[in-house]
């Protein structure tokens, strides 16, 4: 039969990284240093989901010949995070914008969405992402900055960001990104995230039930629903964020996920497990979401 057929593996090009680093140095913009609390111990343990011991005993721990080793940027299911790019190998010691994940959003003004990664060995409260927008002559035509949409970012963990500026998209020829880590309060990340189902955008059977009721007529929105399990037992109110990635690994959309309002209950607090949902009716973005790969983050003030 045919040769092994693998999905295109996502990897970072050392050459591109070197060029990017050199170009930043040449422009006088240094990669930001992180403010690291002196008492923060390096993170050694990965936030693995607890597994059935029976499964661990039964697992095959080595690959057969002809099967590639796991891609360090590949998909992982961890406590508080599910998705690609959680990678503790080859850490740079900085917080780094993963430029291959960045995509320009539709619209007249410049707006991008992407991932930034904590490549240090300590947790970071939040990451400030900045961008200089350059025209084709290399002149600065605008700047933008924003905090990552997730806080309490662990060693090796990516976090989504959304940047925008009042500059026409067509005027931006290139972008220089920098990122700065900030100390923050402790964040509880021990959550397990599960998708229940997704409904595609457009003309499909109408849904009118818990978590989501469609409008009377199509096009119906894209909808996703799922659950978040709190592994700690103490009620907390988690912030839930999702990113949708295209087949090339670029983020095409990010959003906060909502918790349902329950009769007689504090809506956001979860002791054990609760449902979440999100709907999008944007005719440009929504049709792309059902085919995209989803990353989830969950965190709550500890």
């Amino acid at each position: 039969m045919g040769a092994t057929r693998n999905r295109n593996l996502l990897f970072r090009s050392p050459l591109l990284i070197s060029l990017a680093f050199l170009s930043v140095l040449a422009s006088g913009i240094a990669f930001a240093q992180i403010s690291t609390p002196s008492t923060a111990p390096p993170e050694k343990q990965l936030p693995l989901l607890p597994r059935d011991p029976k499964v661990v005993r039964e697992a095959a721990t080595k690959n057969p010949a002809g099967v590639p080793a796991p891609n360090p940027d590949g998909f992982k299911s961890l406590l508080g995070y599910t998705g690609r790019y959680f990678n503790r190998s080859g850490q740079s010691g900085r917080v780094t914008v993963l430029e291959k994940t960045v995509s320009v959003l539709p619209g007249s003004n410049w707006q991008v969405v992407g991932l930034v990664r904590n490549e240090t060995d300590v947790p970071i409260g939040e990451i400030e992402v900045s961008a200089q927008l350059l025209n084709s002559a290399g002149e600065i035509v605008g700047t933008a900055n924003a905090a990552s949409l997730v806080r309490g970012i662990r060693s090796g963990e990516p976090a989504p960001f959304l940047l925008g500026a009042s500059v026409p998209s067509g005027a931006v020829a290139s972008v220089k990104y920098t990122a700065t880590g900030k100390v923050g309060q402790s964040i509880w990340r021990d959550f397990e995230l599960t998708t229940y189902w997704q409904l595609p955008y457009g003309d499909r059977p109408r849904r009118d039930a818990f978590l989501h009721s469609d409008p009377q007529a199509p096009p119906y929105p894209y909808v996703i629903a799922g659950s978040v399990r709190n592994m700690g037992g103490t009620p907390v109110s988690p912030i839930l964020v999702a990113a949708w990635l295209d087949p090339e690994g670029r983020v095409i959309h990010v959003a906060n996920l909502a918790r349902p309002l329950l009769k007689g209950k504090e809506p956001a607090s979860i002791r054990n497990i609760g449902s979440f949902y999100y709907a999008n009716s944007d005719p440009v973005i929504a049709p792309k979401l059902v085919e995209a790969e989803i990353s989830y983050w969950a965190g709550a003030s500890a």
Partner: protein
Amino acid sequence: MRRLARLILTLVSVLSLGPGLPTTAPVYADHSSSGAIIDALMDPLINECSSSLTQNELAALVLSIPWHEVTGGDTDLTPSPMTLSRHDTDPQLHYDFDQTGATKRAFWHPGIGPWQFDDGGIGAWAGRERFDSGVTGHYVARNISGRYCDGETAFEEIFVPWHACDNGECEATFLAIYSSGTDSLTHLTEDSQVGLLGGSVERTCIFPQIDDEFTCLYVDPANAQGFDDWATTPSPDASTSNDSPLAYPFYVFTQIIGTDAYEWRVWITEDTPDPIFDTSVAARRPLGSNSRSSLEWFSTVGLCDTSEQRGECLPGC
């Protein structure tokens, strides 16, 4: 407690089926379910809301879903733990993207079992475990009871992960199989012919180049226990805009390498008509991801079923 619950179940079943007994309740059709699954749901450790949900109430909630997921609502049919979904038509789910040719039945079914643990949804975390209704039944029970204690107590809230329950079907079934007056399961027949694996068989496997043995599961749809129309309708060779073919028998196991975990399915040459495959073919899915977008296929993976000496077994394996 477990024995007591079972005794109550038996007594109620006998009473409810007794001739000439007066009844003011609606007359319900019988409901057939795997006795092994009912047993598994009597484990008190799976009830995360025992202060509000009795064990029988929780079991009835969990049991009321599968008929609507996999038997078309026919409650006198026993849902099979081996049930393989047949409605996916994504080319990535076929070896070599072959949807119509000779290899089309090297096919990855995304939805598994009575609760249809789909890897694009509630089954994303599970590999081989999806084929064990003891594991999945416990997961469903913990999900429902955990959410119940966090306020999701209305029927439409309880059943929200399952589309087949969207229109009140599962609520109606719950009301039929649970008696709140006696806190007991009722109108429920235990099918002793359907085990937790539904006809799949645990075996010991190795990759020939590697010494470590591991437990794998051999899934042959021809051996499915319980309602098995999914294996014949549509025909196993079907590949239409609505239906997938039925997979040839395959081995499934979970692999964990450090922080990376995969569900594997392997088709060995003995299980495919000669000469379609001259070597085993296999696919793996990172746990947590959707097979419709994340499968990797291989034609280089040898697997030896050391229990039965099937597959690519080297001398001395």
